[in-house]
């Protein structure tokens, strides 16, 4: 059968049943089809594959694969103490990073949202790390944070502080990766907050000022409540980002010392590509998928409620 094009006038005449709505739908599907195809091939496909792997005991070295049902999940959630240790690390990482990131982003945005001479320079300085290579960033910081010779400790020494060997002590290592990650990513939230602040009419703070509000009252009673929708979104995307952190950990600490910075995404990588427990790693990946999904759903729900 010879295919007729949509533009063929005879076709339109011969198909009076094809309503305007149907034709609209058809066009819409045509336009989204490349994305849908990409989604299928690069997201849905692997996802289904991972679900499948997660139910198997598959060793990449011996190339043997046996079906084990829920065993990998049971392993993670009930038998393997590593898993909960890793989850604890991920939560600590998120709880440390999110408030620090948001407080800093907001402080920067508050000082940089109004135009003044040179404001663009400052915005660029704080945003630049976001677009810097994560690899370069992590390597440079690893270098700066070395024990005795590191620049950070040398600077601390000049004011009489004897800095720790940052990346070799579990608690300090966690602190160091959080802080360096915050410095890298804070620019993104800063930009989001700048946009949100600029959307708040100047009249609001002027009216408040005229009524006797102090700067702090203006911030707390007028600005902060009006930033709520932005803050919700920023919290959730930052949280999701912090759960997915990998490159930073991989390059700075490799999950150490004593697994002190071993977070979920890095643990998955370790299990799959260092220990070749593909089945177990897949189960972990699915667990992580649900955590991120849950956070995303929370975000969507909150956003709906916010825009009411």
């Amino acid at each position, binding site marked *: 059968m010879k295919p007729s094009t949509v533009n063929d006038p005879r076709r339109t005449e011969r198909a009076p049943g094809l309503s305007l709505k149907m034709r609209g739908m058809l066009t819409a599907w045509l336009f989204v089809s490349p994305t849908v195809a990409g989604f299928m091939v690069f997201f849905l496909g692997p996802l289904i594959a991972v679900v499948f792997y997660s139910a198997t005991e598959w060793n990449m070295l011996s190339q043997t694969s046996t079906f084990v049902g829920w065993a990998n999940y049971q392993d993670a959630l009930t038998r393997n103490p590593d898993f909960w240790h890793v989850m604890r690390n991920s939560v600590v990482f998120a709880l440390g990073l999110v408030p620090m990131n948001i407080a800093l982003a907001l402080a920067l945005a508050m000082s940089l949202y109004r135009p003044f001479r040179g404001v663009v320079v400052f915005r660029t300085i704080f945003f630049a790390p976001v677009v810097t290579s994560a690899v370069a960033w992590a390597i440079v910081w690893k270098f700066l944070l070395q024990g005795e010779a590191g620049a950070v400790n040398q600077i601390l020494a000049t004011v009489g502080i004897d800095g720790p060997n940052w990346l070799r002590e579990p608690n300090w290592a966690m602190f160091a990766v959080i802080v360096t990650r915050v410095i890298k990513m804070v620019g993104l939230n800063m930009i989001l907050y700048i946009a949100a602040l600029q959307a708040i009419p100047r009249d609001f703070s002027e009216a*408040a000022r005229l009524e006797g509000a102090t700067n702090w009252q203006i911030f707390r009673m007028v600005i902060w*409540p009006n930033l709520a929708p932005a803050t919700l979104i920023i919290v959730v995307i930052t949280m999701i980002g912090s759960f997915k952190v990998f490159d930073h950990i991989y390059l700075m600490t490799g999950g150490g010392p004593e697994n002190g910075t071993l977070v979920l995404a890095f643990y998955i990588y370790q299990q799959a590509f260092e220990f070749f427990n593909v089945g177990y790693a897949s189960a972990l990946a699915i667990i992580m998928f649900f955590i991120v999904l849950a956070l995303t759903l929370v975000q969507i729900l909150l956003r709906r409620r916010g825009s009411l």
Partner: protein
Amino acid sequence: MAGLTLNNVTKKFGAVSVIKGVDLEVNDGDFVVFVGPSGCGKSTLLRVISGLEDVSGGEIRIGDRLVNDVQAARRGVAMVFQSYALYPHLTVEQNMGFGLKVRKVKPADIKTRVREAAATLKLEDFLERYPRELSGGQRQRVAIGRAIVSDPAIFLFDEPLSNLDAELRVHMRAEIAALHQRLGNTMIYVTHDQIEAMTLADRIVILRDGQIEQVGSPRELYSHPKNVFVAQFIGSPKMNVVEAASLSAVSEIGGDLAGVVSVGMRPEHLTVTQPTDGLFRGRVSLSEYTGAGSLLHVEVPGSGTFLVLQNGPEAAETGAEIGLSIEPENVHRFDANGLRIPSSNSLKGET
């Protein structure tokens, strides 16, 4: 309550002079309207008075107090913004009580004062609502209510009605006038709508390019404009101003014509006559029917287009030859600098 005195007030933004030396005396309880074309500095002057902008030079006194260096919040002024500036996350009641809350007034007192103001403005039924749940007129009233609650010496309004539709604007205009009657506070009101200015003001301040052109009651400004700018700014449609030399009829109007370079005639003062009867004649190039009457555009050879308001249902048709006539006391005379020349004819006992 207090009056307001401006003494050679100037305001610069960087190198740009926006207010160029304003002297003004506002009596306690007066309703003063600032009018002028867009960009002339009305809002800036209001903001300088409020303290939201600092003053570059001169003196501002509220009552007897020099307030140049007094914070906005301590000047005893309240401002109603064009955008209303209502906080979207607070209810009407919380919006109106905001100023008292930040000043740590007791919640019970806040409640009483907010209820009082709400009663004045018929807002009692809306206290629990959020601004987004109100109509434009109601929001406007909340904004005014917030100003009332703070019990200021002086109310400042910056084009408060410009976001409302025409009908509501007329209604709110009357409400603001009634409010002024009731409260008796000094009010300063910025608008670029000269009808609003005429109807509300005890005194009108006409600003142009950062300077006062004239201050006076609406009647004074209408009948004795100091110069061509004021003459054309007050009154709608605007006054016809033509070169005296171009109109032979000027001599027939009589009076002392020494130094008269241009003459002004308001559209509502010109009457349409038979072509042969008028002081001068012209041809109707456009006739706009407005219901109560018609606005005629009349080409007068040598002088240009005159706007003429013709009352009643009968309108001269487009293309018709008509005569125009005017009472001599309604002719305004201006000299080479555009300044008014008082004449015995047009000075009917007033100053």
